């Protein structure tokens, strides 16, 4: 019972944080892509040029880092 509770808790934690990160990572990619497309079509109502490619790279790096970082815990 006792250990059982803890196991459930651990599972929920892993799955939960996993879902949260997975979902928000997806959202980051989706949003970045959307913005890039919109800017390509409409062009130009932004101050700093957003070179989608390397931003996507950054994002990937972070995502990877997070995975690592979470495994450490």
């Amino acid at each position, binding site marked *: 019972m006792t250990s059982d509770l*803890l196991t459930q*808790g651990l599972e*929920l934690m892993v799955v*939960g944080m996993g879902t*949260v990160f*997975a979902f*928000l990572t997806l*959202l980051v990619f*989706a949003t970045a892509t959307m*913005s890039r497309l919109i800017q390509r079509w409409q062009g130009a109502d932004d101050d700093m040029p957003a070179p989608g490619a390397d931003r996507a790279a950054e994002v990937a790096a972070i995502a990877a880092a997070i995975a690592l970082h979470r495994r450490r815990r």
Partner: protein
Amino acid sequence: MELFGELWASSGMYQMTWGQLAMIGVCLLLLYLAIVRRFEPLLLVTIGFGGILSNIPGVEIATGNGLLHLAYVVGIESGAFPLIIFMGVGALTDFGPLLANPKTLFLGAAAQFGIFATLLGALGLSALGVFDFSVREAAAIGIIGGADGPTAIYVAGKLAPDLLGAIAVAAYSYMALVPLIQPPIMRLLTTAEERAIEMRQLRVVSRTERVLFPLLLLLLVALMLPSAAPLLGMFCFGNLMRECGVVDRLSETTQTSLINIVTIFLGLAVGSKLAAGQFLVPSTLGILLLGMVAFAIGTASGVLMGRLMNLLTREPINPLIGAAGVSAVPMASRVANRVGLEANPHNYLLMHAMGPNVAGVIGSAVAAGVMILFAGP
């Protein structure tokens, strides 16, 4: 005449229990914090006053056909009030900063670690026999770490209605205490150099992006995590009304009359859960304690994630904005801004913190979806 006897027997002085007296004291304290210290007044005034009404003995207010109990049944058991509030919050939210720098969503994700750590902690304490929280209850308590009132109330209403009073009070109290709780943690986990980092000015965001974002978010929720759809769906609906520009009259009413009316009755209804019998139980202490822990851990993991991102990205990121990932909009952003200014008088983080701040709202709603999915009925 025995009527005077009846009168005395029906009086509060005769019927009131010590518990009720104590709870009235607690509620007066909440009113003090709200009115004099201006801590989250919109909710603490209504909850506090509702709590007093609910501890008046011998009259149906928070029970039976009493107004507050009706409000609870109609608005909170059904989940309607928190969802409508969430729609209003959506109509009041500006996703501009988030769209200008979507990476900050990671900060909103990291800060949710407080939720799950607390869930684990609550179950640990139960395992040790200190408290006796079920998985559902532990999940509802964890959500306090989301620092988002309506989300906490919505989840508690679904998973642990008996704890709703304590959870709501904890959530709003700690959101109110953000300016006191967060700064020490933020200073502890960052170097002065990091706190001094100035961030690049945010790009302008086009109307098209603003209109499409809530739809994009909704579709992702629909595809990935339907159990988060009620909360995030209403949130996106409010935001779409705000941004689409063709239903301004609806958006305006949502941001004013509608959210105000619902806030009043939500507060009173939550207050009905502050009746001594329900509130003065050991578990309440545990909830207040764990809630505080959840907050602290959430803040910490947000800040640490900020440091990590600053190391990993070419673009400078001030880790302080990570603390805003817990939501508590817009208080947490103001705190990040203030602590940033201490370290560097030219360092205005407010707008940069708004990104993670609204990301935190999304993050905790996602966490809520997971909780409802796995711990739910």
